């Protein structure tokens, strides 16, 4: 008899089969993902969750079966309590007779197949064919910026890198080893020499003078600091991958932005956040709301705070620039921005807005998306849309889109981030 421990065998042997199954179920899964977004359960998106898909079509495993609705059959059952031979029993409803119902004839009525879809798998489907704009390009350019880091000491270098401690330590060791007379010893001899002169002790004075001269000579021969003592700090540049991103959520919170419109914007932000999380190890969010002034606020205030006043978009851009300057050096952070608005802005602010956007914000950003939310009350283009449109055509990292309903969000998001050239079904 053998006992073998198989627990150490490689895990997840079933993974290959699972992937084959998911590939097979792709069509259904896409619909599930789409529904999850449309039904407004965005907050739950990205958790492990159960998924039900129909088992018909591609996912069925047909075989020849006897139709229980036909012909004549006998069943032997246990647990008779009062039936006598010849008794008649009402035919049980399909499924309650105990043996479960078999596939129904219309084909589509099969039981939905329920299973647990893992977060990773969900997100894979969710973001299938999508790509971070400019990510590839930046990576090719070695987005990694280099930082100097200490790498010990070296024997030459610019004076400002001189490492005093290290240099002095070596100097001292050398002085002790070679027996360089200390200054204090010399001072003491000089004092005793003076004393001897004062005492008219010519012999001692001569001895001391001789001694002093010898020591002074030695001091000159053995310098206090020699070139060999010098040590300089050594820095080498090490590449540090930039795997963090900050996402700026800009939103007009003036009275014309209703809760509904804010809800639309929120969904977009959540999608963007999920998306960024897949590409960066660390994603931070900054919420900037604006009316005629702008301020950085927390999430709660951002979505639910009440504000009144006019709309000056450039104030938000200015605030964003300040936050970047203060906390998010461009070398270390990938910067994404999503601006949501109903499209209003004071006309006199437009030149300023465009200037800041083009000259200050866009050069810092990896990507800047403008989402116009609204219920299409106004057929004509809004102030912002009109001004942004030519810019969007020109700037690859600047995209604009309109969203009218929650169900649009996902497709708008997809169209903004879709891989160039490959349009998925």
């Amino acid at each position: 008899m053998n006992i073998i421990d198989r627990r150490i065998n490689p895990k997840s042997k079933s993974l290959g089969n699972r992937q084959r199954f998911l590939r097979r179920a792709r069509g259904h899964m896409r619909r599930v993902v789409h529904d999850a977004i449309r039904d407004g359960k965005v907050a739950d998106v990205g958790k492990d969750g159960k998924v039900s898909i129909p088992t018909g079509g591609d996912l069925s495993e047909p075989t020849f079966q006897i139709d229980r609705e036909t012909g004549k059959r006998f069943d032997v059952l246990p647990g008779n309590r009062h039936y006598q031979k010849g008794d008649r029993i009402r035919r049980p409803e399909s499924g309650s007779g105990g043996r479960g119902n078999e596939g129904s004839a219309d084909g589509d009525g099969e039981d939905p197949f329920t299973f647990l879809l893992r977060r990773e798998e969900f997100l894979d489907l969710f973001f299938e064919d999508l790509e971070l704009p400019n990510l590839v390009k930046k990576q090719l350019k070695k987005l990694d910026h280099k930082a100097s880091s200490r790498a010990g000491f070296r024997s030459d270098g610019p004076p400002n890198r001189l490492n005093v401690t290290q240099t002095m330590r070596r100097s001292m060791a050398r002085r002790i080893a070679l027996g360089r007379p200390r200054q204090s010893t010399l001072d003491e001899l000089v004092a005793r020499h003076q004393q001897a002169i004062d005492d008219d002790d010519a012999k001692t004075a001569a001895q001391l003078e001789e001694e002093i001269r010898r020591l002074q000579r030695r001091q000159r021969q053995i310098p206090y600091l020699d070139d060999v003592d010098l040590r300089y700090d050594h820095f080498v540049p090490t590449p540090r991958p930039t795997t963090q991103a900050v996402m700026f959520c800009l939103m007009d919170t003036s009275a014309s932005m209703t809760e509904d419109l804010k809800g639309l914007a929120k969904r977009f932000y959540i999608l963007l956040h999920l998306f960024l999380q897949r590409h960066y190890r660390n994603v931070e969010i900054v919420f900037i709301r604006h009316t005629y002034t702008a301020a950085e606020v927390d999430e709660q205030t951002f979505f639910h705070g009440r504000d009144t006043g006019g709309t000056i978009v450039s104030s938000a851009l200015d605030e964003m620039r300040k936050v970047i300057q203060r906390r998010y050096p461009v070398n270390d952070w990938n910067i994404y921005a999503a601006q949501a608005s109903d499209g209003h802005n004071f006309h006199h602010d437009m030149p300023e807005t465009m200037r800041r956007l083009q000259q200050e914000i866009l050069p810092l950003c990896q990507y800047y998306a403008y989402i116009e939310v609204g219920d299409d009350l106004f057929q004509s283009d809004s102030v912002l849309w009109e001004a942004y449109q030519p810019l969007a055509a020109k700037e690859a990292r600047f995209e604009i889109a309109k969203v009218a309903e929650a169900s649009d969000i996902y497709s708008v998001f997809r169209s903004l981030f879709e891989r160039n050239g490959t349009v998925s079904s």
Partner: protein
Amino acid sequence: MPDPLYTGPDWDFATLERIHDAIEPIAIDELGLDIYPNQIEVITSEQMLDAYTSTGMPMMYSHWSFGKNFAREEWLYRKGAQSLAYELVINSNPCVSYVMEENTTTMQALVIAHAAFGHNHFFKNNHVFQAWTHADSVLDDLSYAKRFIAAAGVRHGELAVERTLDAAHALMNYGVSKYATTRCSKRERERRLRARQEFDERNYDDLLHRTNPNTGDGSDRETKPKQPVEPLPLPEENLLEFLAEFAPRLEDWQREVLRIVARLSQYFYPQRQTKLMNEGCATFVHYHIMHRMYDRGLIDEGSMLEFLRSHTAVVAQPRFDQRNFSGINPYALGFAMMRDIQRICQRPEAEDREWFPEIAGCGDGMAVLRDAWRDYRDESFVLQFLSPRLIREMHLFAVSDNRRHPFLAVAAIHDEEGYRDIRRQLARSYDLAQREPEIEVIQADLKGNRHLVLRHRVRRGRLLTEETCNRTLRYIAKLWGYRVKLLELDAETGRELRKHEAVPEVTA
């Protein structure tokens, strides 16, 4: 009294060994079991889930349907709707039993007694297993299948292989030549061996083929089916083998895929015929062994209670009108019948002497059981050994369901008049021919229009489910390459009741 073999739920490998060594003499000397050498493998719950969602085999080729099963079972397991099997046992030599690491010591003892001795004996001795499976080569076959499917995937594309497997799986139950006198002739085994060698050689020679354009690669060419001897051996019920042999348009690797699935089908064929007996035998064995170990002081009272609790759950038989009823529990009926046979041999009543004159009072229940385990399958076993007393105890009754009538009718109950009816009907329900539609090839035109004609022998008016039938037929058409017809003919009158047809989809 000796010290118990173990205390508490935690076990280590030495404990398992002690348990096995304590069980062995009981099984061999007292019960007279004859077993393959045992190999006990400890696995995790995930590995268990994995194994039994891919047909219960320890290694299996890849296919999406196993992933589907896994996803389903995992969901049920995680939400707590269903617990995992405690063990899994492979009909191989040595006999491999998988036990889960989460099991308590008592459960491990139960599992070892049940699988490593009960099932093991049944596998080695039952004539159906003897006739249809080769315990010595099962693991080799599986590993070959896995390698072949994987290599075919690389060579011909995963999707192409998947499509062929889909079609073959649809015919999973039609890969057995039931009435062949020897299920595997010497010639056939040689052919298989050759095919395998070729496969291996091809793999080794791959480089040569790829680098030398003049060699050509014969394996990818569409090959001609074997020129059939006239007339074709019809009717043929082994659809997979027939298609592998004669389908005009398959490539060689596809034929081999069909044969692999056919062999798998053959491996499961005995299991499908002996579920009741196999489980009954194993349950009887574990029950006896655990009691004997308790009698000898090898397991303590706490462990015994734990054992009884799970044993009772295993052999529970809900009444037909209870919510959790899902047919007759093979563990329950099998165990009850084994115990009943033992009783008839040792303490027969007048009724038993009348019904079972050959064995009643013979005294050696184990000998009778061992003979039964060797010579019967579920259908014949029930027909031979179901006693009136057990029918009464289980309150069995037979219901006839004729779709023409709005009511079901009680055909027989547990009384003098009904015993034989119930026994016959129950036995019949274990007959594979009753449970699965009987489909055969009756006509194949290999020279003219190349149509293939199948027949469903319709018994008592029970037709095929239209939808699944059409889908399965489309798979057959895909393999055959030309139009396929299925006639549903009444088994007695030969009258055509229904007709289905499928043509292969045109693929670009």
